[in-house]
């Protein structure tokens, strides 16, 4: 079976710059343009520009859109004021995670709508989930419709202490006025699109969604501006090292159909009180029992990198496993996240990580590994 990968509108630009491309979530994505560490550090010290067009983007309209989504998400979004963004999880009946998403309440010429951004690899699964529940909740098409706009748009992230200068160069209205987790439907260079003050790096930054027709010209403008101030384009490899330092979960690693948001330490995004949603019963049970593995941060003193799947042992017994790991460019040492038995999850606990047959000492540390100055 041959799988063809979808290309983002910037595919030719990435390959022309010599980016190493690889498949991710069904898309051909730039993994790195040169050195991962350089792209990472540029984002932390100046600004990084990311093509994240592969993310799924769904628009929900209709009188029942808010309540429909409330019934599927771990937190309500029907009460989101216009221009606000909320992080929430689609959960399954076992309390596990279908996907982690950002939901934004906005308005355009057609009226109010909810934008949901989902992980690329979960788009088809989420669409099937929505279809199933529209039927199960018996919501009529007159009151609820959604559109998959993924292929009509491109999406970029501009992240870093100097992100503001870059975003300002393409926005008529001053983006620094925007609070964190707010969004606007606004003019960006030649076209209107969605601008949000959100990101996945632990830095200040914005994410931009524009129609495909606007993508290449906008990207080039943003890139030129980035380059002028010591920034650069950044691939998925550095996107991963950045989010790991900021202890942000990645679906498939810290979240999955079997891993609940409670396990992942995302209690802030789970509202069990006065809110009915798919998976609530299982989460109430879990929250009561409290006996489930917890996500922890781990550091080692060596240079070997703890990687996904490596077992974690205490006194000869396997007590958990690594979910994500890398060499941290900012800290200059290996960092990892993993899950361990609840009683071993406190900061300072000493464990052993089995790295391809070699056991190395590690310590549970507080998350995140990195917090941007002033936050």
């Amino acid at each position, binding site marked *: 079976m041959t799988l063809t990968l979808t290309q983002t509108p910037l595919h030719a630009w990435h390959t022309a710059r010599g980016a190493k491309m690889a498949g991710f979530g069904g898309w051909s994505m730039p993994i790195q343009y040169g050195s991962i560490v350089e792209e990472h550090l540029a984002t932390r010290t100046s600004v990084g520009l990311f093509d994240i067009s592969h993310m799924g983007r769904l628009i929900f309209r209709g009188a029942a859109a808010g309540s429909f989504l409330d019934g599927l998400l771990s937190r309500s979004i029907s009460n989101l004021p216009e221009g606000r963004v909320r992080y929430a999880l689609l959960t399954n009946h076992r309390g596990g995670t279908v996907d982690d998403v950002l939901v934004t309440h906005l308005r355009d010429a057609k009226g109010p709508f909810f934008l949901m951004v989902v992980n690329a690899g979960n788009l088809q699964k989420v669409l099937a989930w929505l279809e199933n529940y529209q039927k199960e909740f018996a919501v009529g098409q007159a009151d609820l419709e959604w559109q998959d706009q993924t292929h009509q748009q491109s999406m970029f992230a501009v992240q870093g202490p100097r992100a503001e200068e870059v975003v300002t160069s393409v926005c008529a209205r001053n983006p620094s006025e925007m609070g964190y987790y707010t969004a606007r439907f606004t003019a960006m260079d030649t076209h209107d699109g969605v601008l949000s003050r959100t990101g996945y790096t632990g830095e200040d930054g914005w994410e931009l969604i524009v129609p495909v027709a606007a993508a290449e010209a906008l990207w080039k403008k943003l890139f030129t501006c980035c380059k002028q101030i010591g920034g650069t384009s950044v691939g998925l*490899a550095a996107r991963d090292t950045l989010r790991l330092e900021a202890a942000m979960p990645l679906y498939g690693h810290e979240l999955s159909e079997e891993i609940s948001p409670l396990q992942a330490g995302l209690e802030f995004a789970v509202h069990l009180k006065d809110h009915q949603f798919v998976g609530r019963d299982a989460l109430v049970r879990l929250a009561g029992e409290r006996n489930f593995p917890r996500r922890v941060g781990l550091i080692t003193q060596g240079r070997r990198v703890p990687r996904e799947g490596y077992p974690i042992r205490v006194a000869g017994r396997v007590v958990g496993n690594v979910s994500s790991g890398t060499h941290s460019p900012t800290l200059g040492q290996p960092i990892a996240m993993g899950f361990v038995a609840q009683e071993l999850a406190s900061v300072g606990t000493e464990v052993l990580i089995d790295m391809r047959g070699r056991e190395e000492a590690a310590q549970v540390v507080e998350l995140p590994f990195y917090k941007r100055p002033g936050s």
Partner: protein
Amino acid sequence: MKPEELRYAKTHEWVHVDENAEHAQNGQSLATVGISAFAVEALTDLVFLELPEIGKQVTPGGSLGEVESVKAVSDIYSPVAGEVIEVNQELPDALQWLGEDPYGRGWIAKIRLAGAADLEHLMSHAAYNKMCAEEES
């Protein structure tokens, strides 16, 4: 070492055989092994190298340690059969040598060959380059 004079494994290790080396005993030759510039460039962002143990007996394809980049761990495979008699002790603390001089200062291990040097299954520089070009496309 001049890359044109070396032999290469499919797995990107290079080997140089010195039949007159002072370490050679009883007519046994001494091989020096490292990884190619192509491999180092493909790895990017090296963070760790584990050298093989001195005294280790290896066969072609056997483990000669590991090199780790931000992204992944890669095994290093011996292109030849023999005993590891020397390793580049300073290299793990000077990983930049792999990028700067992979055929010289970035050597990884010296192996006393078990028998006659059997390099037939290894590629010439030209053949190795061809393979790399094909891998990239």
